[in-house]
């Protein structure tokens, strides 16, 4: 966010969304094109397999893991310790910072290579490293771009999708001295050369973790560039930050989860590189880190787990499919949401992780069209969870009177699917500005737009037919 941009926090969503549409229309173009591509690749990849069965299976593996979460976390801890891994438990970001500070001090760390991790973004790890006098280097190309721009990620899979090729040309020209008319492969080569030096000199690699298999203590990571493999292989110490909801029972469960996550995220059969990390280098290995730490991070996840409705959001595998198909996300990209997790998944986990007060009005940043839930690989009922948070907002008296009345009516309708779809159809024929009032959160950006002509069929219908 630049210049006079609104603050980067969920509470500024309306202003930020309006600002984005008014001041940076090219963001909508970049985000729209990237998300449409991601989504069409996903649709093809789902069609190649019996994706309904895959998704039922994945929903149940994650559901099983969560409904036995304490047991699997304890088992994972035992397995990791047996493999020679240092295991840490962190309730808050500060706990994580303490673990990192200790590793930095013990090993005299000056440079850290990092692989893309939304958890690291959530925990503000880079700012912490800088406060310790350590240089954090983001090595995923998208993360590298936004680190150079000093911006947060705008998408959980493609952190720099809001930036065009021309933006990158100017940035790389200024920072790496490449010609302004460089082709993308020349820009990538320049980044590779700069980052290669950092890989070879860094003392510490910090990664996230897509999954943690409890029985073997395996941290599984998915990527396409090879930077995660390098981050976890070349420096002499590796720290993996893993959310407590990432644990799954068995090593074999990874077989389905790795494939489904890749299909949902980018339409690939599997990420081009998968790392299955058991622990530090052993006696018969020629290289690899001598020390591996796994930090099991709560940071609000138990609060989300305690919510009898919203806990289902913990099944999320962070594939980004719900962002790619969301008509609201596509308008603004992720920055307007003001936090690490944007789009539909951001709207349902932020109230749990940050607290409802800080997360408002994100649960309202949706038209409840339901397209997100149709694509979610772990079948999270996203609209139900959005309505749940809206109801809690109303019940706890946190919203304005006008919104309260609007949302009560809206939530009431949404609880009765027949009435809801009738009302939704009616809304499609309502003048846009009036619809903006009916859907309070949309009013912020509706005010900034000309009224579009109503579509004769709903977004959801169109999407189903693949015409979107």
């Amino acid at each position, binding site marked *: 966010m630049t210049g006079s941009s609104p603050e980067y926090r969920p509470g500024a969503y309306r202003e930020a969304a309006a600002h984005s549409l008014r001041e940076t229309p090219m963001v909508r173009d970049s985000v729209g094109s990237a998300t449409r591509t991601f989504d069409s690749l996903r649709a093809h990849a789902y069609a190649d397999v019996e994706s309904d069965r895959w998704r039922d299976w994945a929903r*149940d593996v994650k559901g099983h893991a969560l409904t036995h*979460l304490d047991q699997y976390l304890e088992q994972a801890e035992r397995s990791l310790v047996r493999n020679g891994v240092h295991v840490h*438990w962190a309730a808050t970001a500060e706990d994580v910072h303490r673990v990192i500070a200790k590793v930095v001090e013990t090993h005299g760390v000056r440079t850290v290579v990092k692989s893309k991790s939304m958890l690291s973004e959530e925990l503000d790890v880079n700012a912490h490293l800088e406060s310790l006098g350590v240089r954090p280097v983001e090595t995923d190309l998208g993360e590298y771009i936004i680190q150079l721009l000093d911006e947060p990620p705008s998408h959980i899979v493609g952190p720099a999708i809001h930036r065009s090729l021309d933006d990158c040309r100017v940035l790389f020209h200024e920072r790496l001295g490449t010609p302004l008319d460089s082709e993308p492969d020349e820009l990538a080569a320049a980044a590779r050369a700069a980052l290669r030096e950092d890989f070879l000199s860094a003392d510490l690699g910090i990664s996230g973790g897509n999954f943690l298999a409890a029985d073997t203590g395996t941290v599984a990571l998915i990527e396409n560039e090879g930077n995660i*493999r390098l981050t976890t292989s070349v420096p002499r110490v590796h720290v993996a930050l893993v959310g*407590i909801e990432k644990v799954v029972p068995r090593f074999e469960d990874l077989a389905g989860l790795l494939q489904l996550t890749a299909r949902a995220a980018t339409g690939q059969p599997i990420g081009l590189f998968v790392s299955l990390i058991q622990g530090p280098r052993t006696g018969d290995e*020629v290289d690899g880190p001598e020390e591996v730490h796994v930090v099991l991070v709560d940071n609000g996840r138990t609060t989300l787990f305690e919510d009898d409705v919203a806990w289902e959001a913990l099944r999320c595998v962070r594939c980004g499919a719900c962002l790619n198909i969301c008509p609201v996300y596509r308008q603004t990209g992720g920055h307007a949401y003001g936090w690490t997790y944007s789009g539909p998944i951001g709207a349902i986990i932020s109230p749990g992780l940050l607290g409802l007060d800080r997360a408002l009005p994100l649960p309202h940043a949706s038209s409840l069209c339901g397209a997100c839930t149709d694509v979610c690989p772990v079948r999270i009922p996203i609209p139900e969870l959005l309505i749940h948070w809206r109801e809690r907002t109303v019940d706890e008296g946190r919203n304005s009177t006008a919104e309260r009345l609007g949302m009560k009516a809206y939530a009431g309708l949404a609880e009765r699917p027949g009435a809801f779809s009738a009302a939704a159809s009616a809304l499609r024929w309502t003048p846009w500005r009036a619809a903006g009032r009916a859907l309070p959160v949309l009013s912020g950006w509706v005010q900034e737009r000309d009224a579009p002509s109503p579509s004769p069929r709903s977004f959801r219908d169109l999407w189903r037919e693949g015409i979107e």
Partner: protein
Amino acid sequence: MNTRDQILTAIRAARERRTPVEHPGRFGGWRPVEPPPPLEGFEAMFTQAGGEVVHVSGTVERDDWLRTFLAEFQHLSMGAGVPPGIADLGPTRINPGDEHAADVGVSMARGAIAETGSLMMDARDGRRAQLLPPVLVVLVDRSTVHATVADAFESARGDLSAAIGLHSGPSKSADIGQVMVKGVHGPGRVIAVLA
């Protein structure tokens, strides 16, 4: 109470209100059409992702192919499991630890997977050699090609090294203006030699 116990206690309290979900069992890889035999399947998937596949009938043909292929390179890094004779086939072998100076690498796969077109790379063979050279040749014993990821993982679970990498094609990224580029961090060219 320490942090660990606090987290576990909070989870246990909430879990009492959750209806337990049963584990759904083994992932079946369900598909509408019957997959091809493993070797064909591997080749189709690996090449679709930009990898290259070479078939050789045995070690003599393999070494002939390597001699010709390696002729255009200067510095070779070699995995620990690669037959030592390959070091004499052309480029100067660099020392372990200097893999970043190699312009080509030869590694030995512990297996391959048809379902996803993946090579299974083991830490015991050397991780730097698998990742740092811009061009990587991977030797694969065709008897180790598994039909599915689930099969491969079941057979691997009793013998896990510190890290297993699945490599399913050359390194790629579309992060710069959504244009696909190859060879961003890992090898930009990967050739699986099936013997």
